[in-house]
């Protein structure tokens, strides 16, 4: 790895300045959040690094319509945030504890995590089902759902992701996350996240996603439909998990086969829904 090619390390103090610097730098400039990915796999053509952490973007604030996490907050800051812990009974905390190790989470930022869009990301599937909204800046601010963000990755040509908003949890909101990996400190062979909003014992709103399939996390709409308006009993869970298994788009890579991943989709969805069902019962 040759790091001497990099000649500039810039620390702009506003999004405007950062954007200008990036545009000036053209293809050879990169934003840096925590820099974990950039330092690890520094592309050969990069000569200018633009560190976003001097912009004041690291706060985590709880408002009426949710929790707004600044893009340069580290994953551990998110994990340790009391307001984040209140989202769906700590589901974000459960997930974050499984991201790399604390040594990584003290470096990696939420913005870098969402921008790097690793197919095996643990954050993305959960944020998908929590219906997180991101705010981007490319001269003007835009807010869009995570789903839309990844629908067209062109969003990232030069945009700065400035924050992500997690909707506040309401009564009846439940979510769970499950990760399969080879060891306790590993990226996912596959991961699943489920969210349900329960009204009168029935799943009024459902979102289910699987990541590391090995493609970028995606919603499993047929499984969602199967669960929609149903009660979370064992038979339903089994049925939903089977539909998820049958409809998930999986493929082979060096870590696992597509066939095996389908089996993991089944088990992962089942474990998530079981966990939610247990919480539901406990809540009664």
């Amino acid at each position, binding site marked *: 790895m040759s*790091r001497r090619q990099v000649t500039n390390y810039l620390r702009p103090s506003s999004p405007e300045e950062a954007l200008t610097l990036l545009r000036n730098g053209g293809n050879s400039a990169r934003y840096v959040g925590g*820099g974990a990915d950039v330092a690890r796999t520094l592309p050969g053509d990069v000569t200018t690094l633009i560190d976003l952490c001097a912009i004041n973007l690291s706060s985590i604030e709880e408002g009426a319509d949710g929790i707004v996490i600044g893009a340069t907050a580290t994953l551990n800051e998110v994990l340790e945030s009391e307001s984040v812990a209140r989202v769906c009974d700590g589901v974000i905390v459960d997930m974050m504890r499984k991201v790399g190790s604390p040594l*990584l989470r003290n*470096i990696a930022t939420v913005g870098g995590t969402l921008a790097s869009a690793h197919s095996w990301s643990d954050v993305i599937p959960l944020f998908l089902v929590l219906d997180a909204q991101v705010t981007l800046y490319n001269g003007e601010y835009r807010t869009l759902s995570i789903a839309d963000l990844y629908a067209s990755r062109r969003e990232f040509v030069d945009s700065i992701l400035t924050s992500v908003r997690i909707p506040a949890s309401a009564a009846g909101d439940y979510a769970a996350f499950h990760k399969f990996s080879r060891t306790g400190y590993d990226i996912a062979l596959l991961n699943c996240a489920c969210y349900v909003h329960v009204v009168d014992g029935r799943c009024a709103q459902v979102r289910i996603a699987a990541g590391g399939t090995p493609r970028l996390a995606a919603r499993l709409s047929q499984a969602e439909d199967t669960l929609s308006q149903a009660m979370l009993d064992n038979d339903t869970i089994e049925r939903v998990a089977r539909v998820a298994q049958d409809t998930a788009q999986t493929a082979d890579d060096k870590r696992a086969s597509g066939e095996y991943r389908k089996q993991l989709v089944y088990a992962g969805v089942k474990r998530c829904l079981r966990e939610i069902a247990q919480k539901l019962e406990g809540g009664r």
Partner: protein
Amino acid sequence: MIDITLTINGEKRRFSVGAGETLLELLRREGYKSVKKGCESGDCGACTVVLNGRAVTSCIVFAAKADGGTVLTAEGLESGGVLHPIQKAFLEEGAVQCGYCTPGMEMATYDLLSHNPDPSAIEIKEALSGNLCRCTGYVKQVKAVKTAAKKIAGEAK
């Protein structure tokens, strides 16, 4: 080259660093050899230091990013020839075999114990999960962290 200031082990120092240079490269080049190199990709934890109070793998942190910050390495744990309780605990519990992972483990422990003075076994394992050791099987390191916590609590009394 970029000029930065770092407070390393309590000493404020100025350095001229490459824009792409990592904190690991800087620290080793400046003589902090406790900071070990095992992968240079954030996978092994041998290069762990405490940066602004938190343990990080210094091989995937740009040195320039740390500008203005404080760094603690294993060299800075010992004071006046007296071992830090964490170092003492690692030594006494037999948690050190080849010792290559040891400074990194100690720094991860330092972060853990400064935020959680009485961690459970699972909290210890999670905190040190990114510090790979090929020699020990980790049994004695988990014990060492517990012992270190006790020693520190004892000193505080």
